[in-house]
């Protein structure tokens, strides 16, 4: 029974992953990732990590992926060009990734650690439950917990700064982060020279 669940989860995860990489439309890639995440959550359940599985679905699949969906809808998908700008990338990338996989597999399968080849010990009740995770978080790993919270706060502030609209361009806005000379959003006077995202207009702007 456990094997069936494992293989189901595994195939779902792998299939989702391959779909993320292979699908051309970014929107579809996002959806494939959601499938992948849910499969992983299943695998977590088999591994007695209920809280983590729930957090995976709620946080990752719920919040993060929704964010991705919003942004990909806003940005839109575009066809990526066929030709490869970096010579050898299309060949070397899968090759090196495969090499990495093989090495790690060899390491895992050929390891002298006997415990890896076994099922694992009988676990106490409450292993992986929210209560015990919470105990650990608030007792042993309190600093980690607080630090992670800080990180979230900073990320949120950063996101607001990054994506916020500029009230004024010119001297006040000159100190803002990374403005390559174009004013933002609705404050434009002249019509946009080209639809965004095409390589041509972008190249001009970058080259300036």
């Amino acid at each position, binding site marked *: 029974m*456990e094997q069936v669940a*494992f293989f189901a989860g595994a195939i779902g995860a*792998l299939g989702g*992953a391959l779909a*993320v*990489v292979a699908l051309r439309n970014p929107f579809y890639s996002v959806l494939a*990732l959601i499938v*992948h*995440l849910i499969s*992983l959550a299943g*695998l*977590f359940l088999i*591994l*007695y990590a209920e*809280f*983590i599985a729930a*957090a995976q679905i709620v946080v*990752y699949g719920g*919040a*993060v992926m929704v*964010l*991705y969906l919003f942004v*990909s809808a806003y*940005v839109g*998908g575009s066809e*990526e060009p066929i030709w490869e700008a970096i010579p050898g990338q*299309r060949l070397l*990338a899968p090759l090196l*990734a495969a090499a*990495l*996989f093989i090495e790690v*597999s060899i390491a*895992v399968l050929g390891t002298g650690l006997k415990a*890896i*080849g*076994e*099922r*694992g010990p009988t*676990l106490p009740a409450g292993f*992986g439950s929210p209560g015990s*995770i919470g105990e650990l*978080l608030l007792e042993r790993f309190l600093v*980690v917990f607080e630090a992670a919270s800080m*990180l*979230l706060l*900073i*990320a949120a502030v*950063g*996101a607001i700064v*990054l994506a916020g609209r500029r009230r004024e361009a010119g001297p006040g806005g000159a100190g803002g982060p990374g*403005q390559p000379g*174009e004013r*933002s959003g609705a404050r434009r006077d002249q019509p946009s020279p*080209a639809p*965004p*995202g095409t*390589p041509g207009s*972008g*190249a001009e702007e*970058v080259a300036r």
Partner: protein
Amino acid sequence: MAIEWYLVLSALLFAVGASGVLLRRSPLVILLCLELMLNAGNLALVAFSRSLGNQEGQVFALVVMVVAACEVVVGLGLIVAMFRRRLPLDVDEIRELRG
């Protein structure tokens, strides 16, 4: 199941994610592949936690999720900022920092 199955699966997912980061040109998709890699790591952590009977691995996986979330936030913010400034959403086009 022996833990090594999960570890091999984790390695495989990591490899797939890595090749995705290298092969795709849209920053959005690259971020997605980055998520794959992070999740693969999470899987390994949870598997080891099960194997050792130690919940610290799960706490670690939780923190990794937090970090991944923050990173996604910032990355998507960048993408939105790029889009707003009419820059092409193609990592190969943004190459001013070159020697």
